[in-house]
């Protein structure tokens, strides 16, 4: 799909729609439980002082994940 990038590449303050999550097993389960599913809209709120993890806003709450987890999530910037 054109215009799809990984979540890690997103700049702070930008919004995007999740296109796909390329992971299975426990991590996939955790991400889904927290509402990270294809079609969900998110906004990158910021990064920790050492640039990792990243903080996201999703569906009315804030969550954080590490860059190597963000790699597994492809998004389409809005």
């Amino acid at each position, binding site marked *: 799909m054109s215009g799809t990038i990984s979540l890690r590449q997103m700049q702070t303050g930008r919004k995007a729609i999740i296109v796909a999550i390329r992971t299975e097993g426990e991590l996939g389960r955790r991400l889904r439980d927290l509402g990270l599913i294809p079609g969900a809209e998110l906004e990158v709120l910021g990064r920790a002082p050492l640039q990792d993890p990243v903080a996201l806003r999703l569906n009315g709450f804030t969550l954080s*994940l590490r860059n190597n*987890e963000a790699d597994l999530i492809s998004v389409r910037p809005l």
Partner: protein
Amino acid sequence: MPMSALFSAESRPLTIALAGNPNSGKSTVFNHYTGARQHVANYPGITVEIKEGFAKTRGKERIRILDLPGAYALTAYSQDELVARRGLTLDPPDAVIGVLNAGALERHLYLAVQIMELGLPLVLALNMYDEAQTQGLEINIPRLSELLELPVFPTVARQGLGLNEALEAGALAAEASRAGKGKAPLILSYGPDLDALLEELCLILEKSAPLAGFPDAYPRRWIAVKCLENDAEILTLLQRGNPALAEEIRSKTTEAARHLKLTSGTDPESLIADYRYGFISSLLRREVLRSKEDPRQRRRFSENLDKILTHRLLGPILLLAALYGMYKITFGLGQIPTGWLENFFALLREAAAEHLPEGALKSLILSGILAGVGGVLSFVPLILIIFILISILEDSGYMARAAYMLDRIFRAFGLHGSSVMPYIISGGIAGGCAVPGVLAARTLRSPREKLGTILTLPLMVCGAKLPLFLLLTAAFFPEDATLVMLILSLLAWTTALLAAKILRLTLIRGAPTPFVMELPPYRLPTLFGVLIHSLERVWHYIKKAGTLILAISVLVWAGMTYPAPPEESAATYAVRLAVLEETCSALPEKEEETRARLRKELTQAKNELNSLTLAHSWAGRLGAGLEPLTAPLGFDWRVNIALLGGLGAKEVIVSTLGTAYSLDAADPGGSLPLQQRLKRDPGWNRATAAGLMIFVLLYSPCFATLAVLRQESGHAGWAVFSLLFNTLLAGGAAAAARSLLMYWGI
């Protein structure tokens, strides 16, 4: 009244479980219902706590309330979630009150829907309703209630709004389900492919009913869905109960998974989650949830605060300041009541010394019980303050930010951002305690990171190590006391992190656990919540002092008292003591000087006897036997005894040294404080003192910590490992430090 007692004994009270995501305000709801009438329910075999309490409805009915651990879903990802799920399934409550954050309804309904799939009667409390309103959300509650076919209430738990109504509705639902008029499980459609398969699985499960290993309460379809979701616990249960059935089901689900992958590139788990979320979002779109004009106003407060508190430069500075502030407050404020308690126990000892008859009992009470337990209890104010501060940090949402900011550093050592809390509680800020620290590590998901954390946190500067550090710095480094304490703290952190890294590279190898964590909005903690939380932890500590430490103090006392010294030398002392006392009391009133001299002689004789007893005792012999091992560290038999006693509880080290050094040639009066006696002892110098401090910092955790280590790691082997590994580490580090200091001539 006997009648009512009989009645209540016969019918067990209705049970309502509180379920909800972390940060939904569930604990506040629980505290409101049960007040202080709550305790940790004992569920055998599990380490995460389920709290239990009792509430009364308007009709004066007593209801048992269970507070399940916070869970995002019933997929059993973390230990907390597994326990929450077991609380709902193994011994199902009569009804559930689902506590939801009204401001994040979509995600919070995800858990509620899964509870409905389980077929448990559910009442929804849309909590923090006021916040949702100020965020511009409009929730049509009657509509939501109608669509889900269950009672829904807006609540504000901090102010107690709506909670009684929710409880009444919960009680009604519970009564109905007791009477066999429960609700049928919610049946969600997971799309044509999976629905057909689920029906097939249900038939297979039905065929072999009753299912071995499953309570009847499990709806068949729920089990079928869990099998499709590849749920480890359910699959294991099936396998254990009926291997042939498990095999049959597994072949069906793997086939379905393969097919799905081919046709749509997805897996059953994702598809099921998609349909669940789809159900929720279509539900909310049916005139349930409307967001007024400006949704950007929402949560702006927390986000703006985060811009400062997690700022690249300001964030870490403020974090350090917060930690330093905690340290300052704890010790600045804590000193005062600690002093009172110490004085109180000193008075108690004086009174006991005066009024109790001489003999073994007096010695037991004075040296065993009062010295041991009193020393431990004097830490209660410090612990209370530190837990209050930690509760505030936790409840306000700042602790999650600390984990977020520090994750990158902790990950470098094979740990997790969430390790910061257990580390700090254990003494990352000097003065903690490893026992609650190990327990706090329960929030860590991965067994490996959890193990890495709990095995290294006993290396921190716990409160019980402090008295010895204070004693030795005062005696040998009086000018550099602050510097020495700082070095010890830094040494603790460095050693712990390096040890964690080594462990994670060797014994507990494995990939890091994901850091997917919610950053809850900042909130002002409630006084009641903070107090309940802290008092509970302090009570645990007091219980430990009253039981374990009491037992160890008595053991240590016995070890240091028996066997008694040979009779002839004891008899010589007895005669000498009697003569001295008699002369003393026979003196005419005016002879003050002679009296003082005699008194000194008397004390010295007593001390000599004590020391003789000690040297002759089991502990003394053991300490002497260990001298060859500890010679490179410069520890003599007296230090060895103290260190052995410290295995029971580190507080014991100082009091044991006190007894062991009662005899000192340089101090014939025996009136000098221990600090001065050590300073004058030719066997002591700064290098030895530094070595001892390092040894005490790092050597084996105390028995209480070893016990929780065993419990939390699930293996006694790890406790034994911790004992040996830490002691060897301590020996090596202390010997190296001592030689270095001697070489430099410090």
